[in-house]
């Protein structure tokens, strides 16, 4: 076994042709790098982009995925929403009609009643002014 190992060691004397080596070396050194200077791998950028991609994918999936509740029907919901809108509009119209009726009734009542009594405070006020003048006259007489 040792003899074999010794013989194997003799293979170390094998050398390539000097001319070949020189030629090969010159050709190699004249060859440019594969793609210039390779960009340094940026882990932070990679993770950010991966996260962004994940958000985009999950967003797209969420948008186009069907509702998980089996009883939910998009068409039925849409119809229901449209009906709801009509109902709201009808309620508004009904309210405005009632207001119009009340206002017109009030106006009719006012026009039919005596307008002189519209402000009951005016005669009371004039009566009050009269008594004040009487008091003033009495005071003047006393002072004179």
């Amino acid at each position, binding site marked *: 076994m040792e003899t074999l*190992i010794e013989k194997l060691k003799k293979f170390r004397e094998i050398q390539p042709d000097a001319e070949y080596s020189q030629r090969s070396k010159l*050709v190699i050194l004249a060859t440019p790098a594969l793609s210039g*200077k390779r960009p340094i791998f940026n882990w932070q950028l990679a993770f950010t982009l991966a996260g962004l991609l994940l958000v985009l994918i999950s967003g797209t999936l969420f948008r186009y995925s069907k509702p998980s509740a089996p009883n939910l029907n998009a068409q039925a919901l849409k119809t229901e929403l449209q009906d709801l809108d009509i109902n709201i509009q009808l309620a508004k119209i009904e309210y405005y009609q009632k207001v119009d009726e009340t206002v017109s009734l009030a106006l009719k009542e006012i026009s039919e009643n005596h307008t002189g009594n519209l402000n009951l405070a005016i005669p009371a006020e004039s009566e009050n002014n009269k008594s004040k003048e009487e008091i003033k006259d009495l005071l003047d007489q006393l002072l004179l």
Partner: protein
Amino acid sequence: MKEEEELIKKAKKRDREAFGILYDQYSPAIYRFILLKTGNKASTEDMTHQVFLSAWQSIENYQSRGFPFSSWLYRIAHNTVIDYYRTEKKHFNLETIEEAAVSSNLEEKIDQELELNLIKSAIKELSTEQQTVLIMKFVEDLTNKEIAAVLGKNEGAIKVAQHRSLKNIKKIINGNLNRKIKEV
């Protein structure tokens, strides 16, 4: 080692001279490694060139991680040879291998060459992994740790592979010798 680190640092900045020094230092070992696996001079030259070209083009990605630069080169060489056999499926006659003369004595030289050719052909009959382990351990004197790094295995597995490769090569050599004797 520090000197080598400095050379690598410079080579990473596309310093041709620094990479040239690394080439001169490691190309003979890589050449031997490939030649002993393929057994063909022309293919070995092509593949050695390819290994160092790949190394020069991607040296910016090299990270030491506690292993010598040679481990990285051997890993490229190992993969290059695997790719070569996978795509080309070529087999060459080992008798065509040329090597430096070991002895000045002609008779001794012939004996040695015959012996070495016998071993070379036996190496070729081993599995790719056993070839790599045998060459790295017994020809290039690499440590088990370095071999493990090249093959991506643990040191225990390398020890087992060493034992098996020696056992198998001995068996192959004996078989080939007996066959040649019978032929004669």
